[in-house]
């Protein structure tokens, strides 16, 4: 039953919701790139990607702890330069852990299957299994390895590097430093990835394998290396997204904290056209915004439903997503 149907609330806080939606959407977009690239190259939906993102959250957290940050309820008070440096270090920490985890996952879980020529369904089931393994690792094993400082049943006590403060307002909606940082960094990273895929030798390798693996191999492209690179890029971006997400939701660092977000990011990838890099970006932003509007109109508990209904509606009219599948197409 619908708890409420409140168009008025949407009008009232339209801009505030738009800003929240864009912030979330850009995080979805970064994670979605990981799904989309792997799909483009391997035709595999890497369901464990949400756990790569989750490991990134723990990675940046661990990095900060290594630099001497103790978790506390409130934001730290440091100078600009220091905050900046630590944000950078945390991002690198997240990227390294996520990137390594993604490449490791590919090696341990997918490569042996590929060697044996396993059918697509087996890959999919392996992905789901790997997702559980990684979650339960953080849930049960990580706390034992780290003397209960990382992982376990409860969310990590947050390390807040930046406390949100209003920078300016648009039509009465406040825009905080955190919102701006998330959107700007995410767009910059997405743009960089786009340039990398479309403008470099490595990127050409990825596109060629996506387009036609056999011919690409005949032309001297190492498929295995391309696959590794693809997982690496996806992982690194998920690690960056992990830092941006924890800026926004400091309490979100928990073993199952990547699951729903990962599903949404996957949705975003499909929405924009899976396999299509720019589609992932568009899909992410769109999904983030629609989800905010939807939950305000229908009630908060309908948030996830709104996201999936949007997906279904779009796929009914454009089965390949808004921009279509095009990683391998010549132009992209």
């Amino acid at each position, binding site marked *: 039953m619908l708890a409420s149907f409140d168009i008025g609330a949407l009008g009232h806080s339209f801009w505030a919701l738009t800003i929240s939606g864009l912030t*979330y959407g850009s995080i979805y977009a970064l994670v979605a790139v990981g799904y989309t690239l792997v799909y483009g190259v391997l035709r595999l939906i890497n369901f464990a990607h949400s756990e790569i993102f989750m490991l990134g959250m723990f990675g940046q957290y661990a990095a900060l702890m290594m630099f001497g940050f103790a978790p*506390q*309820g*409130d934001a730290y008070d440091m100078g600009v330069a220091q905050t900046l440096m630590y944000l950078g270090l945390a991002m690198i920490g997240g990227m390294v852990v996520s990137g390594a985890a993604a490449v490791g996952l590919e090696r341990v879980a997918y490569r042996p299957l590929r060697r044996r020529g396993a059918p697509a369904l087996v890959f999919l089931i392996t992905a789901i299994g790997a997702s559980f393994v990684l979650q339960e690792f953080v849930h049960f094993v990580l706390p034992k390895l780290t003397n209960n400082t990382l992982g376990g049943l409860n969310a990590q006590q*947050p390390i807040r590097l930046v406390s949100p403060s209003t920078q300016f307002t648009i039509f009465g909606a406040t825009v905080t430093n955190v919102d701006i940082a998330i959107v700007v960094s995410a767009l910059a990273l997405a743009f960089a990835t786009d340039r990398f895929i479309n403008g470099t030798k490595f990127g050409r390798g990825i596109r060629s394998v996506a387009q036609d693996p056999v011919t690409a191999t005949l032309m001297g492209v190492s498929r295995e290396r391309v696959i590794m690179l693809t997982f690496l890029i996806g992982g690194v971006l998920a690690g960056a997204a992990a830092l941006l997400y924890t800026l926004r939701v400091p309490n979100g660092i928990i073993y*199952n904290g990547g699951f729903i977000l990962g599903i949404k990011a996957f949705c975003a990838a499909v929405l924009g056209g899976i396999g299509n890099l720019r589609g992932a970006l568009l899909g992410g932003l769109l999904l983030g915004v629609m989800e905010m509007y939807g939950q305000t109109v229908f009630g908060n508990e309908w948030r996830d439903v709104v996201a999936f209904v949007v997906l279904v509606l779009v796929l009914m009219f454009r089965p390949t997503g808004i921009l279509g599948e095009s990683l391998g197409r010549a132009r992209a």
Partner: protein
Amino acid sequence: MRSSTPRLAGVALVTIAGLVLVGCSSKAPSASSTGTSGALTIQPLVQIDKAGKEVKSQAGGTAANPAGDGKATCASTTTIAMAGALTGANAALGINIANGVKLAIKQHNDANKDCQVQFKGFDTEGDPAKAPAVATQIINDANVIGLIGPAFSGETKATGAAFHDAGLLSLTASATNPALTTNGWNNFFRGLANDAVQGPSVAAYMVNTAGFKKVCVVKDDSDYGVGLAQQITTGLGSAADASCALSVKTGDKDFSSAVQSIKSAAPDAIFYSGYYAEAAPFVAQLRTGGVTATFVSADGTNDPQFVKQAGSASKGALLSCPCGPAPADFEKAYEAAFNVSSGVYSVEAYDLATIVLKAIDGGAKDRASVVNFVKGYSGDGLARHYQWDSTGELSSALIWIYQVK
């Protein structure tokens, strides 16, 4: 292709610029946030009755001491059992209770050489499907003279009839479902107020004592959250604002849209009906979003994790609980024995175990006489006065309001 390197550099610059912005602006709010939340704890504020009025602890009442007079004698096989989740996701509560019982028995045994009572913990994992088998074990253990537990309402419901048939005392320190005492189990006693007391008491407290005129009730989707929210909303009457009655989901970490709705409603207080895992980010986001209304929640949120995760945003939050606060002496003894601080329901378990020990010291040698002793018991414990009505509910069931400060 050639242009890609400068472009990438440009992108890197933009990323850095974004981070610089964060760095710059992080300076502004720092005055108020120097990280002193470590000092915040959940402290008892006031004990209330169903009308929301303060009830002072009876003056002159001395809590029963498990040590007794030191002259008790009993069979060395006499055993007090405890049943509840000792492993698994919900083990924290079960362990709090088991430790409370162990502490009481330890203090009793140290003082009474000729009456060494044994403790036996039975692990149900909190699962109503597993509890009946465990109950059979307990019942067939002839040495078990009394039981503290079961811990949760579900498992209590599943095993109550068996304990009743066996005539074994079942004294729960934590099962709060109101229906449990309506089964005619004359061996079952509840050592704290049930859920039907908490909701109305807290609602009355908010309206009558705290004077809130407009309250937004936000609930999660758990049985606990939905049930409690219903009672709170009824109890608040016209003070509950339907326009900002919101539902969230267990597992949510982002509440932007809920914060927007509450901000436009501008209430005096927000009642959150759910658990700390969601309450902590919710209150943090409310404060960041500029909502300063008092944050009120119940026993699901009354956990040190709430303060740890929310930091200074949790300051001033009111948290109710049927559980009583741990006195300093108890806390000291508990920490010395188990190396951890006591938790919710440790005090209740200690009090209830003390009552069973009193029965043993008083010469009770079989299950029936222990049940009879508890039926006629009236005395103070560390947490409250214990005396039961004919159904097994406390004759005066009170709720504690705690505050984060």
